């Protein structure tokens, strides 16, 4: 599996994503600068977290208009796998590959903490190895992770089973106190129509081996690897 990790000015989880990929023996990863235009060699494209372009204008707005994003759109359009983490999720929404937008956290504070994610669907290349209803403990680190979409879009996401993860309590139930940033319907991650693109605010790469306190996040990349048959 060839993994492209895209680097924008201000990305800061690019090397975490690269290391995450490198630990999978069947994967080869390469860093891709935002000016590049060819991703035809890649099986999986990761848009990492960070603060691309200093979050100027809106989070992800400037990165969404860089040359590499045209290649990401083309890759996604052909059914190629794309994983956007944190700022990567914001960029995918800004560029229109995923619906909705990420607003300022309802608390107005930057949130850096572990959360529990309830897997809502195993029907995607990223979650095929994760049982529906099971919980992952992974960290969030963001100021703008409050997912917003209009009611019609939310209906569609629910109806088509495209909500991948919701913020949940340790017992798996949903309640406002376990929805740290105030996201609509506690949504933490969503899939595109083709189910080959996943955007999520939490950081699975930061919970990918026991030394990190949790290795729950590793399942996403392992699932993707399996989906690609490597």
């Amino acid at each position, binding site marked *: 599996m060839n993994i492209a990790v895209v680097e924008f000015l201000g990305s800061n989880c690019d090397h975490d994503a690269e290391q995450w990929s490198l630990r999978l023996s069947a994967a080869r990863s390469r860093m891709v600068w935002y000016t590049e235009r060819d991703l035809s060699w890649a099986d999986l494209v990761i848009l990492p977290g960070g603060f691309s372009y200093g979050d100027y204008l*809106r989070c992800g707005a400037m990165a969404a208009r860089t040359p590499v994003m045209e290649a990401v759109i083309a890759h996604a359009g052909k059914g190629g796998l794309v994983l956007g983490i944190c700022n990567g999720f914001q960029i995918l929404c*800004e560029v229109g590959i995923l*619906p909705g*937008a990420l*607003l*300022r*956290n309802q*608390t107005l504070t930057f949130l850096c903490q572990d959360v529990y994610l309830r897997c809502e669907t195993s029907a995607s290349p990223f979650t095929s190895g994760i049982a529906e209803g099971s919980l992952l403990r992974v960290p969030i680190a963001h100021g703008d992770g409050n997912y917003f979409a209009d009611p019609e879009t939310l209906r569609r996401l629910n109806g088509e089973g495209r909500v991948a993860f919701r913020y949940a309590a340790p017992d798996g139930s949903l309640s406002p106190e376990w929805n740290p940033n105030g996201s609509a319907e506690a949504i933490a991650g969503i899939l595109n129509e083709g189910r080959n693109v996943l955007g999520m605010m939490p950081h699975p790469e930061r919970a990918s081996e026991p030394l990190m306190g949790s290795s729950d996040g590793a399942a996403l990349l392992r699932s993707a690897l399996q989906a690609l048959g490597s």
Partner: protein
Amino acid sequence: MKARVHVFLKSAVLDPQGKAVQQALKTLGFEEVGSVRQGKFFDIETGELPGGEDPKVRVEAYCRKLLANPIIEDFRVEVLAP
């Protein structure tokens, strides 16, 4: 051409920053403050527009392409000088 563009959250979108500002004003004794919505504006100066295009139409294109996110924001364009 000179234009000023206002970008603000749609009324259906919660504005926690505006709400915090409203509460802060109340704390300062301005009890009458009912609601505050926070937005931003851009002052833009350009050279001559291509093909004599209508300035307002041209700047609205800037908004749709970059300055505003139509999912959460509305915009208003004022042409200050042709």
